[in-house]
């Protein structure tokens, strides 16, 4: 055990055990109907062990599985001004936000963190579909910009997991302006020659697809994820015909040349490590369980985490 895991892990674990106390011990797979025990399901990253149906996974659960030993440091996101348009539909926007915060235990629809994945330093961002449909407003835009800026600063690649119904309507035009804003973020990575990998998860639609989620150097999707600009219902209403089976699903997009790969969630981490290490010109990953990364960690971490202290050895 090195000092980082001793110090940080208990905190993260306690956070998790609180969030993960399941209300129901059993979850029914919406695809095949199999009853899945919660442990079995979470060990399989919310993928049905019977039919491989990929259910939603929160950004925190994903990061816990993605980063080595579940250790990651959240990147601070600049706070946008609240309710910029004073928007109200049947509810006030601030009330909808509060309800989403209460239901998810998260502040907003995107989580950004830095850490190591297979001892490959990365910055990762994940969108939370359970938070107002993952919708993209000022906060999500700020999160992507902060992620890109952090990646550029640390000279690390960015891995982004997208999941969103589209723009945050309650922020009106400002949600639309996240398309150019996040595209500027992608441009920062491009100009720093840092890999930007997008993992498209179910569903990724609307303005999100038409900006940062389609601009990756490598585009990977989870199986059967719905990925589109216009939703299937809108299209059916417009063209008045039935759409083919699997239309706008990950495999369909792969066939039409819009994706590089479709990858099972349980294989995603290894695949990301493999790709990123090649693009970053790092040596191949070590297979199997990693040895305690005593030397590497202590050599690298203090320089990043606490540059002012250092020099203890």
């Amino acid at each position: 055990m090195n000092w980082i895991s001793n110090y940080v892990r208990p905190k993260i674990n306690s956070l998790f055990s609180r969030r993960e106390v399941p209300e129901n011990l059993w979850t029914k797979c919406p695809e095949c109907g199999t009853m899945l025990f919660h442990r079995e399901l979470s060990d399989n990253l919310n993928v049905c062990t019977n039919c491989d149906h990929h259910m939603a996974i929160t950004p925190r659960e994903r990061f816990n599985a993605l980063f080595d030993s579940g250790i990651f440091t959240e990147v601070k996101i600049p706070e946008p001004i609240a309710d910029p348009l004073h928007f109200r539909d049947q509810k006030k926007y601030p009330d909808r936000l509060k309800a989403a915060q209460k239901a998810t235990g998260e502040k907003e629809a995107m989580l950004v963190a830095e850490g190591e994945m297979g001892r490959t330093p990365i910055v990762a961002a994940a969108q939370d579909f359970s938070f107002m449909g993952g919708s993209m407003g000022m906060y999500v835009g700020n999160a992507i910009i902060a992620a890109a800026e952090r990646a550029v600063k640390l000279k690390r690649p960015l891995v982004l997991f997208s999941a969103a119904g589209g723009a945050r309507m309650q922020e009106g035009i400002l949600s639309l302006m996240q398309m150019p804003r996040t595209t500027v973020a992608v441009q920062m990575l491009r100009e720093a020659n840092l890999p930007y990998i997008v993992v498209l998860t179910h569903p990724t639609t609307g303005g999100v697809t038409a900006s940062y989620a389609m601009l990756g150097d490598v585009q990977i999707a989870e199986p059967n994820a719905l990925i589109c600009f216009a939703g299937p219902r809108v299209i059916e209403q417009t063209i008045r015909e039935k759409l083919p089976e699997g239309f706008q699903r990950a495999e369909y997009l792969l066939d039409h040349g819009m994706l590089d790969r479709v990858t099972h969630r349980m294989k995603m981490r290894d695949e990301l490590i493999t790709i990123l290490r090649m693009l970053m010109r790092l040596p191949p990953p070590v297979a199997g369980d990693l040895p305690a990364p005593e030397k590497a960690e202590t050599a690298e971490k203090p320089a990043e985490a606490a540059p002012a202290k250092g020099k203890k050895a």
Partner: protein
Amino acid sequence: MTTYLEFEKPLAEIEGKAEELRALARKNEEMDVEKEAAALDKKAADLLRDLYKDLSPWRKCQVARHPDRPHCKDYIDALFTEFTPLAGDRNFADDHAVMGGIARLNDEPVVVIGHEKGHDTNSRIRHNFGMARPEGYRKAIRLMDMADRFGLPVVTLIDTPGAYPGKGAEERGQSEAIARSTQKCLTIGVPLISVIVGEGGSGGAVAFATADRVAMLEHSVYSVISPEGCASILWKDAEKMREAAEALRLTAQDLRKLGVIDRIIKEPTGGAQRGRDAAIAAVGSEIALMLAEMSGRKSSDLVKERRRRYLDLGNKGLAA
């Protein structure tokens, strides 16, 4: 023939009466109706001015969509010389919803790109009502690239209900095409200015309107979603479009407060559809002004400032 909008019905009645009187007088020479008709004309003019003085957001949407408003082609024909349309995305097709090419504005060569809606049934179908497919965005990308290489400023004219929601459009990568077009807007080292002349419909508009300077005609709209679409999602009732239009802040006036656009171009009384030539001329001088403002700047500064503009956008809300 005037096409009246729903809220212009009282106006249609008065103008109709005046026309009736004059028609009667034409048939019957002894009749003198001019005094009466002139009074009606005056009444109509007053009403028109009142109606347009303070248009609600929903009424602005209707005006922005008015079929008699000048469209992209009208602006290009009137304002530019030597317009040479350039077609195709070199990959799949030419999209008639997007027109573009090289032309001169006050003798200076520029690249001009815009959405064209068409003006009658046939041309509307041909132009797909201004709803672009991926080929349209890819054609625009090609033209912006060309402008960048030859140092020509780019002028875009925005007038679209949105990108086309069709099967083929999706299969050929509608979202990727829009994303790349926005990306291209953010990377070219030449001045890029944009005027929203009618509807600025969501991502389909952003793809061309990510610019150094953005102007809007007084009664045009620019929104993340149509009021009808927003109403059916958030109010679960498409008939609540008035409320949605209000909440979305899609008018030129609100968008300037938010810092999304820089300038508002005044329309003639009764909207651009009633004074087409004046509206076109006003857009022309505004384009010239914005281009003059951007000219002589270094490529790298243009790109840097354009990106800064979008990074900073929204940080002040309505107080911008």
